[in-house]
């Protein structure tokens, strides 16, 4: 029978199935970070259990680490305890960890692929909802809660119900200046934040095929923002080229064998999806969110929408609350909205390609006077090194950006990088929820190029407006 990519990945990992269809699924890669793991390790210890297969685990501190000089260690005592707890747990159970001062340290979803720890055909989990990122490799990757982290540690498996299949096909080519971030924001605008709930989404179509692995990761990263636990892209030459030669990837004969299997990781001709969504790539423009949910998104040349034009009462109320929180009025052109801070980083947009795109815009220009802080936070120590070898750090610094150490940073503001109440931010992260970047902070999600343009103009602008 013709199968979808998701069907294939699922079938390859079923250990057993209960009468009601609940399945025990085997996990190939378990990524661990400091925020969602301490209680899981504690549970393991209390029950006298040991990790089932330690070589599947890669751990890294990312959420709490400072992005400024780290030579003095972490100043925040509570964050310090959490990071040290991860170090301690990894030592106790003999797990691989890229600790804070390792050049390989970075955001968990950046370092997995970078190290080749994420491979096509794998099941990848992490106590983090943006684990969907790894689906870009033709892998089944999804976020789990802490009890499930403990379950995977103890059994290498998870109890799961199969999701339904959805295809999101982005057809045709995007216009120059339209990036992976714009594509995925446009998809979420179309689907809504709950549109993908209960589904595993396969992203396909010419515009997705045309993306680099970095771009595909950006798209899959935000599948969760459309409600889908997993997003994925079929394996092709781009995937295999990226994986080849990475530290954790197979090599030699083993790679040849693996490659043969990986080439099968696509949806078969004639396979049926439970739902299909087709999007015209040529109509996508650079996107900016205006509200407190990623679905509240419009094109850069549009105006803030009016709740009075929304027929659904619950939705209209949500829009009013969002406008009040964001301090915006319906009808305001997006390009008239001034920005206080700019954040370029996060597991959505902190890879080398993202930094190149932002640097291209910043090159030879200056950050506007009204911008209190414009910061660039590379996704990993290796991304940072690469950028520095290309001179991108100098481009940013000369333009007036701060060049920081890798970590989650102002994506969720668990460390010192945050918005003050009322401050407005152009951010390349993935969530514009109330308080996400600091209590009372106002987040607008954009691509790296648009974030850099906002820094230069002091308000939202297209790169062509500079």
């Amino acid at each position: 029978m013709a199968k979808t990519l998701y069907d294939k990945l699922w079938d390859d990992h079923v250990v057993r199935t209960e009468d009601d269809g609940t399945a025990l699924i085997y996990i190939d890669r378990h990524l661990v970070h400091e925020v969602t793991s301490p209680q899981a390790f504690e549970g393991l210890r209390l029950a006298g259990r040991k990790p089932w297969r330690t070589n599947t685990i890669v751990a890294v501190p990312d959420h709490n680490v400072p992005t400024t000089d780290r030579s003095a260690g972490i100043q925040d005592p509570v964050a310090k305890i959490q990071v040290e707890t991860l170090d301690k747990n990894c030592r106790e159970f003999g797990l691989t960890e890229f600790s804070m001062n390792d050049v390989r340290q970075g955001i968990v979803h950046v370092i997995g692929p970078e190290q080749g720890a994420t491979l096509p055909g794998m099941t990848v989990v992490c106590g983090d909802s943006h684990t969907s990122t790894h689906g870009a490799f033709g892998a089944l990757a999804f976020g789990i809660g802490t009890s499930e982290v403990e379950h995977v540690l103890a059994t290498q498996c998870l109890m799961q119900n199969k999701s339904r299949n959805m295809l999101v096909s982005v057809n045709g080519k995007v216009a120059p200046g339209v990036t992976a971030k714009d594509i995925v924001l446009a998809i979420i605008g179309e689907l809504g934040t709950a549109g993908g709930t209960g589904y595993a989404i396969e992203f396909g179509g010419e515009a997705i095929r045309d993306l680099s692995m970095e771009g595909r990761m950006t798209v899959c990263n935000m599948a969760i923002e459309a409600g889908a636990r997993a997003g994925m892209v079929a394996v092709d030459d781009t995937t295999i080229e990226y994986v080849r030669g990475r530290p954790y990837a197979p090599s030699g004969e083993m790679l040849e064998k693996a490659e043969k299997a990986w080439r099968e990781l696509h949806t078969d001709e004639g396979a049926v999806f439970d739902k299909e969504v087709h999007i015209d790539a040529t109509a996508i423009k650079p996107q900016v969110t205006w509200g407190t949910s990623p679905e509240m998104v419009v094109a850069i040349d549009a105006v803030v929408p009016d709740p009075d034009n929304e027929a659904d009462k619950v939705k209209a109320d949500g829009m009013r609350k969002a406008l009040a929180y964001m301090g915006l009025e319906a009808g305001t052109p997006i390009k008239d909205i001034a920005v206080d801070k700019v954040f370029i980083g996060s597991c959505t947009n902190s890879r080398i390609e993202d930094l190149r795109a932002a640097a291209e815009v910043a090159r030879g220009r200056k950050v506007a006077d009204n911008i209190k802080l414009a910061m660039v936070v590379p996704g990993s120590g290796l991304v940072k090194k690469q950028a520095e070898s290309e001179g991108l750090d100098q481009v940013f610094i000369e333009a007036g950006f701060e060049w920081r150490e890798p970590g989650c940073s102002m994506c969720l503001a668990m460390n010192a990088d945050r918005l003050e109440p009322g401050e407005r931010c152009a951010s390349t992260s993935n969530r514009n929820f109330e308080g996400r970047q600091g209590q009372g902070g106002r987040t607008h999600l954009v691509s790296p190029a648009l974030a850099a343009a906002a820094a230069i103009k002091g308000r939202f602008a297209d790169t062509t407006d500079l």
Partner: protein
Amino acid sequence: MQAFTQHTGIVAPLDRPNVDTDAIIPKQFLKSIKRTGFGPNAFDDWRYLDAGGPDIDNSTRRKNPDFVLNQPPFDKATILLARENFGCGSSREHAVWALVDFGFRAVIAPSFADIFYNNSFKNGLLPIVLDADIVDDLFKRIAAKPGLELSIDLEKQTVSCEGEVIARFDIDEFRKHNMLNGLDDIALTLQHADEIRAYEERRGQEAPWLF
């Protein structure tokens, strides 16, 4: 895990869609390495007027009188009524821990985000999906009669109000069984350790690069 069989309690109405886990428990409280103690900071940004933090004593903070969970009788609620897509966003199980620690035993909504839904079952918090119409009607009933109690029967999969069954809900058999009996998922899975090893054996032949 605490078993769930039947429960009767006051329902608190939280009338907004897309309540995300950042709102249920803001990130500054995620630095704890424990599973307990999150209740006083559930919905922290909405619940208090001044800023909080892991080392700030909540009893000294001003509560927001407009927030529903600060208003009697809802401060004693054990069932939460919400709108679409409850629990979206971050996978943090701390959100479920915070709701349980506050005293909630069940959440009723037209839809839940997947990860939150899963996490709830691991902690004895019952997420109940009801039709948007029924949920809407419940919001109206509570507005007319604050302090209204609902009774939930997991065995029968029913929700009752004032002695009358007002809705039935769906739930997977496997999850229901574990919840009714308060079973530990890990112990259950380890009963199948041989099958897991057999899978590893087989898969190791097919895809040796994974081992």
